[in-house]
């Protein structure tokens, strides 16, 4: 059974702090790992990772994948109150074509 575990489950920081969110996975025949941000309703896409060691970056957010150790991290530098959200990690299995399994999410709260 595919499994995605995120940590921490919740995190409270102050503006300007740097945070690291973790996502570990156990899937058969890994295809890709995706990060999403959810503020109110629909999750919005952040990154998709398929290869180890290649950092994806967008502004203050960056992410990297380690396929040997089966995990990914999402870094947010110089956090702002607008970064407060649930961050979701998902993994696609190649064995069960089309299956996209999410973790339990990390609730990030950034205080001014």
């Amino acid at each position: 059974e595919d499994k995605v575990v995120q940590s921490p489950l919740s995190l409270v920081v102050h503006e300007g702090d740097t945070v690291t969110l973790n996502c570990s996975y156990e899937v058969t025949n890994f295809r890709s790992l995706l990060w999403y941000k959810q503020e109110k309703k629909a999750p919005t896409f952040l990154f998709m990772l398929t290869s180890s060691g290649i950092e994806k970056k967008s502004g203050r957010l960056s992410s990297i994948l380690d396929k040997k150790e089966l995990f990914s991290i999402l870094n947010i530098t110089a956090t702002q109150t607008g970064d407060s959200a649930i961050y979701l990690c998902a993994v696609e299995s190649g064995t069960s074509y089309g299956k996209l399994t999410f973790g339990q999410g990390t609730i990030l709260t950034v205080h001014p």
Partner: protein
Amino acid sequence: SQTIHQWPATLVQPVGSPLSLECTVEGTSNPNLYWYRQAAGRGLQLLFYSVGIGQISSEVPQNLSASRPQDRQFILSSKKLLLSDSGFYLCAWRRPRDHTEAFFGQGTRLTVV
């Protein structure tokens, strides 16, 4: 461009009543379609996914069922709702066979009373 429609946005239903949530996608063909449920402040639990018309994979044995009567239509149903069916239901689509992201609808907040 592609869009996804999910309705209704909110729903309050009594225990034992039926349920039908609908999701449609425009601007693409043969999408992969997904139904997820989210408890308050938590991650997404995969309920059903479909890679083609009439092809439904069920992930969690429960009181719900899904159908895909048309290529871009995905329906989540129940014959008799339970209190535990309350939650936030999200529909999503994804292009087939590519390493691409999933796009989500705005969700349905279901409260069973």
